[in-house]
Structures are given as structure tokens and as C-alpha cells.
């Protein structure tokens, strides 16, 4: 604690420390990372659902990749996982498959499309999709909604909502206490995710943690520490100083945009564009609980996130510092004049927000994948949750995110799942228009 305080007293040293960290990060190579898969190129993944509804890879299908002017870049067949991957330069490519090499009884859903035009961007793996089906004719996807589906999607929705809420609470509290819309907050989620990924790798390498559960627990705690420290440094080295200088909120918001871009590409720089998984939890098969299925790790994540959110709620309600946070969010001037150290409260909000976002990142990474673009993908969903619940309140962020998560997942019963995020965005826009204070927020007196 004393060490933290001495850093706080000396912002220049904090900045220096940050530079040092960046320098160390830049100097340490990650030779093990980024070599399993190309970070830039083309990926074809072929799979189909068999009669039992299980996903099966389509093995041994011929694939050819050409440039836009027809030069062949590579050819091959899909492997045991139904995947064919090729590292390429950037630019437009054409990926073709040979339908005659498809497994017995499997056909292209769209029989005319045997090639796809895609564009490979810097640091990205462009994916060419070829939907397959068993049999020849168009299959009846069925419009019967079963109770099992509804329950399963509700569970998925709650899961997504809880994980989003971990990121949203910090965003909301930072807005509440400083008025700043932090566009970099979703990158804190990615940041935590990768911190856990590195910690997991390190723990496995030195045999720390022992069991898989121990390893991932260690990684989660490490991620929270990194997230909290990042929040501390960001406020200490950048935002507290900008506030002191009287930099406008709009200018600060642009700074967060720059920060977000930087964070995202730093991660891409060191970890590459391909998806990774937490090895200690990957490959778990889902357990059946009643009518629904969930993997053990997701179940633990859901339980932990509920626990953490309850703790946050209790802390805001019962502890002195929690009450101070709410007071500052409610009326900063009044809080300041009643003797609350507003700057300290804001610093703590950044630390707590960073740690929570990082933990949310670990959960998201376990449930899905560890991917550098996670932050970009969830940024607007988090915003949607926060605005839905009412900007600036922690409970609002939680309720809003749960609604967004449920809305996204359950809506796939009726709309194509590729459009599921659209509903959330439309809902956010709609809420901003008709009730900008959110469903839990209250109207503010004007003037």
C-alpha cells in the first residue's frame, strides 16, 4: 500500500514505470506464440450436422486459393478437423472447393457457390464459409420451438449478460464519477483475457497450480491483478492528469479511442490474429442439468460472476468507500464539499472497473475463445447494456446487460443468428431516444 501511495504521489514515476513495462513487453519475444497458425491468411472450415445433430468435420475436401487475377497461391485438402489453412499476403483472394471431393452423402447447401471471394487484411485470417448439409435437397430447419431450446437460450443469455456486466460496471461507474465515456473499456476485457492466457501458459510451464482448476484460478486472479493495475496506471498516468488540466470530456473521449486502438493492436502484435483457447478448460464436454446443457467451466464462471457481482453490490451498499463511490456518481460537487476525496474514489473506480473487466474477459475467453478482436465485438453490446440500464449506475449496468444478453440469445429463436446483435443495437438506440436516462435511471432536473 505504501508503495502504491508513493507512486501516486509521483505521476512522472508512474509514467516512467509504464514506459518501462511497455519497453519490457516490446523486448520480450514470444517465440512460442503465433507459430501454430498463420496470423494472416485464409482459413476454410468445412463441417456439417449429421443425422444425430452432431457437428462433423468434412475431411479430405479439395481446396484451391487463388489471387484475384487467378494466380494459384496454394491448394490442398481439409484435415481431420475439416480445416484448411494457408498463410497469404494481404489482398483479395478467391477460395474454391471441389464439390466432388465432399464426403459421401454431403452436399453444398447452395450448390452453385463453389468459390468465395474474400479479402485478407493485415493481421487477419479471412474465413471462407461453405455451408454443407446431409442429403441433396434443402433441409427443413423446422419452426417448432421447444421448451428445451428456450431454456438453453435463456441460460446462454444469462451467461452472456453476466459476462458483459463484468465489463459494463466499470464503464458505467467511470461515466458516473467522471462523465467520461470510455471507449477503451472493452479493450480492458481483452487485456484481462490475454493476461490470463499468458498466466495460464506460465503456470503450466512451471507446474504452478497443479490441477487444471488451480491453473485457471491462478490465471483469473492474475488477470484481475493486471486489470486493476492497468486501471490504476491509466487513471494515474493519463486521465487524472487530464482532469487536472481541465481537458474537456470530448478530448478525453478521443484519448480513450486512441488508447483502445493502441491496446487492440498491441495484443495483435504480440499474440497474432488467430483464436486461442484456455487449455485448462478447453475440450470439456457439456453436462446436462435438467433440460439444459452447460460446460463445467461455464457453470463455475456463471456462479463466480454472480458471486462477484453480489459482492460488488454489497460493497457499494455497505462499505464506506462504496458509499463514497455512489455519492460521487450521484453528485460530484456535493460529494467533494462533504469531504470525500473525489480523486481517490475515481482512482478506485478505475482499479475496480479494470479488475472486473479483466475477470469478465477470462470468463468470455473460457466460454468462447481468446481472440484479439473480442473488445471490438463486445464494445457496443456493453454500451447497449449500460445505456439500457441508465448511464452511471452499477445496478443499471447489471440489469441492462442481462437484458441485452437474454435479448441476443433468445431472439435467435425467431431471427437468423447472424442478425442477433442488431437487435441489441436497435434496442439501445430506441432506449436512448425514448428514455435516455435508461430503465432504472431517473430524470435529471434541468438548469
Amino acid at each position, binding site marked *: 500500500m505504501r508503495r502504491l501511495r508513493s507512486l501516486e504521489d509521483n505521476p512522472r514515476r508512474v509514467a516512467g514505470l509504464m514506459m518501462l513495462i511497455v519497453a519490457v513487453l516490446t523486448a520480450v519475444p514470444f517465440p512460442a506464440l503465433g507459430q501454430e497458425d498463420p496470423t494472416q491468411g485464409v482459413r476454410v472450415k468445412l463441417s456439417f450436422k449429421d443425422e444425430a445433430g452432431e457437428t462433423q468435420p468434412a475431411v479430405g475436401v479439395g481446396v484451391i486459393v487463388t489471387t484475384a487475377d487467378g494466380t494459384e497461391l496454394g491448394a490442398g485438402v481439409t484435415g481431420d478437423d475439416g480445416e484448411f489453412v494457408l498463410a497469404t499476403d494481404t489482398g483479395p483472394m478467391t477460395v474454391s472447393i471441389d464439390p466432388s471431393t465432399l464426403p459421401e452423402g454431403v452436399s453444398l447447401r447452395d450448390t452453385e457457390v463453389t468459390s468465395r471471394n474474400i479479402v485478407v487484411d493485415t493481421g487477419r485470417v479471412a474465413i471462407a464459409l461453405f455451408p454443407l448439409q446431409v442429403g441433396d435437397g434443402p433441409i427443413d430447419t423446422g419452426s417448432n420451438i421447444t421448451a428445451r431450446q428456450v431454456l438453453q437460450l435463456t441460460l446462454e443469455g444469462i451467461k452472456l449478460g453476466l459476462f458483459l456486466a463484468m465489463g459494463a460496471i466499470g464503464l458505467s461507474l467511470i461515466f458516473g464519477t467522471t462523465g467520461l465515456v470510455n471507449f477503451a473499456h472493452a479493450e480492458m476485457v481483452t487485456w484481462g483475457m490475454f493476461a490470463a492466457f499468458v498466466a495460464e501458459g506460465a503456470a503450466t510451464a512451471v507446474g504452478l497450480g497443479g490441477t487444471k482448476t488451480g491453473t485457471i484460478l491462478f490465471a483469473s486472479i492474475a488477470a484481475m491483478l493486471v486489470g486493476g493495475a492497468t486501471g490504476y496506471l491509466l487513471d494515474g498516468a493519463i486521465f487524472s492528469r487530464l482532469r487536472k488540466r481541465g481537458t474537456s470530456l470530448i478530448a478525453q473521449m478521443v484519448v480513450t479511442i486512441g488508447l483502445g486502438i493502441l491496446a487492440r493492436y498491441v495484443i495483435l502484435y504480440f499474440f497474432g490474429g488467430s483464436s486461442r483457447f484456455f487449455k485448462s478448460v478447453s475440450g470439456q464436454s457439456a453436462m446436462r442439468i435438467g433440460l439444459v446443457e452447460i460446460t463445467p467451466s461455464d457453470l463455475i464462471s456463471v456462479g463466480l460472476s454472480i458471486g462477484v457481482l453480489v459482492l460488488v453490490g454489497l460493497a457499494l451498499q455497505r462499505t464506506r468507500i462504496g458509499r463514497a463511490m455512489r455519492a460521487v456518481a450521484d453528485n460530484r460537487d456535493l460529494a467533494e464539499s462533504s469531504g470525500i476525496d473525489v480523486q481517490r474514489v475515481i482512482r478506485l473506480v478505475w482499479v475496480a472497473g479494470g479488475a472486473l473487466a479483466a475477470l469478465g474477459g477470462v470468463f468470455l475467453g473460457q466460454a468462447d475463445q481468446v481472440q484479439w478482436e473480442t473488445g471490438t465485438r463486445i464494445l457496443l453490446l456493453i454500451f447497449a447494456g449500460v445505456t439500457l440500464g441508465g448511464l452511471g449506475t452499477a445496478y443499471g449496468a447489471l440489469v441492462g446487460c442481462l437484458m441485452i444478453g437474454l435479448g441476443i440469445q433468445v431472439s435467435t429463436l425467431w431471427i437468423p443468428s447472424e442478425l442477433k446483435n442488431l437487435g441489441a443495437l436497435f434496442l439501445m438506440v430506441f432506449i436512448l431516444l425514448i428514455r435516455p436516462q435508461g430503465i432504472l435511471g*431517473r*430524470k435529471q*432536473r*434541468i*438548469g
Partner: protein
Amino acid sequence: MPADMATIAHEPGVSKPDPVLAVEGMRRTFGGLVAVDVDKLEVQRGVITALIGPNGAGKTTFFNLLTGFDQADEGSKAFNGSSIVGKSPHQLARMGMVRTFQLTKSLTKLSVIDNMKLGAKGQRGESFLTSIIPPLWIAQEREIEARAEDLLRRFKLDHMRNEYAGTLSGGQRKLLEMARALMSNPSVICLDEPMAGVNPALTQSLLEHVKSLREEGITVIFVEHDMDVVRDISDWVVVMAEGRIIAEGPHETIGKNQAVIDAYLGAHHDAPLSFEEEEEQLAAAMSALAETDQGEADPAGRSTEEEE
């Protein structure tokens, strides 16, 4: 004071012989809090009306309601006899009612002369299509510029003509805001605390400008805390407390009004005040009372110093 004001009864909500503004049954609530609840108020044309009251009395909210920046929950308001309920601020400004703000809103990154020119009404060059063709508006622009320069000279801001408005001092900004409002040739001008934050050297000049508005036939309504100012320039005083109008009359009678004294002295029972604010209000109330006993201080001689 204009002669026809002398005959009016000194009671809240009294009718005026020639009202330019008339408000009836206006209510505005925020959640459960009633901010403004005015049964009736008429504002006499061509006089200077002061709106006073303790902190939190609802003066600024009432101003916002009058000028269209906020909409009342219920009630009617009329300008020159026609209803202006639901009209937006820019519509009211075009009808001839302009306002200034308690915290000056000088457009900091526009030059002083541009601030002034913005105030003019009916500019042809302000529509998108004509703005591309200068011949359509350049003559009018020159006219406006000449008028703006006249006003700047009158307000002694002509030496700042090409400076950014943001470089002006607080008092100069108040002057600029008033001058800018005058560019629209208003018939009613509403000043929200015109003297707040102005250094004493400029106060006198501002007061003279306000008084000269009356001579030009402009109706002035202003919110003010400083009782000296109120005594100095107002023809009629309206007192608000807790959202209601509790007294009306010339300032000589206001100081003796029991409701007013109660409102000021009792204010700290209702509103959470800091020690300083409370002191200030007590002092103001005391000096108001003391002053009326001594009789009217006569400021009339000073208006002859006016430039025009």
C-alpha cells in the same frame, strides 16, 4: 417611474394597464418538487421589472419557462396578448423576446463582432442555399455590421472588435451578451443576474445601459440578488419564494412587506444553505429594510451621463 404604475395595487398577481407578458396558473414540477407555481403575473410594457427572491425560489426556472427553454406542466402565457405556450426559444426570440444567461454564454471562439452580428434577426445569408451566393446577402451583412459597431461603441467594446469573445473579462462578457441581445431589436429583454460576477467598475456602466433600454421603450425583466441594484434601476419588483409570487410593488413597499421579510429570514429553514450564503441573504434583507427607512436613494442624475 412611469405615471400609470402609481395607481396599481401592491399585491401579488395584480393586473397591469398595458401588460406585454401575462402568465396564469403556471406550474413546473421536478419529480415531487414544485419549482414554480405562479397563479398570475403580468409584466407592464416599457418598465424595468425586477424579479427577486431567496436562493431556490424558482426565479431561474421561471425565466426558463418564460423564454421557452423549459416547458411548464400546465398554465398559460401570453406575449402581446397572443398565447406563446409551447413556443421554442428561437421562436420567442424572433417575436421580440430575448434573454441573457446567469452564466454568460459568450461564444468564445467567435470574434466579438461575429458575436454581435449573430444577434441580428432575419438574415438572408443564414439560409443554406443563399449563403453560397454572397451577392444575395452582402449588403444586409454590411448594414448589420454597421449597427453592431454602433452598439459596440455604445457599450465601449469597440476596441475589442476583432478579439475572440473568450478573451474578454467577465464583465465585458456581460456587456457583450446584452449588446448582442439588442442586435435583434427586442421589445422585451430578460436578463438573468446581469450584475453577477461583474467588477464594481463595470457595474455602474451596466446599470446605465439597462436604464437606457427603458428610454428606448424596451421592457426589461431581470433577476437580481443585489438589492442596491434592484433599488437603483427597477420600477417594479416581483418577489418569489418557494416557486410562488409572494409580493409585488415598487421597491419602497417591498422592504416593508411582512411576507418578503419572512421569506428571506426564514429561507434557511427550507433550503440547505452554506454559512456564507446565509450571511449574505441576511445582510441583503437587513440592508433592504434599513434602506427603505431612510427613504429612496436618488440615482436619477446619473442617467444624463449616458453617451447618446
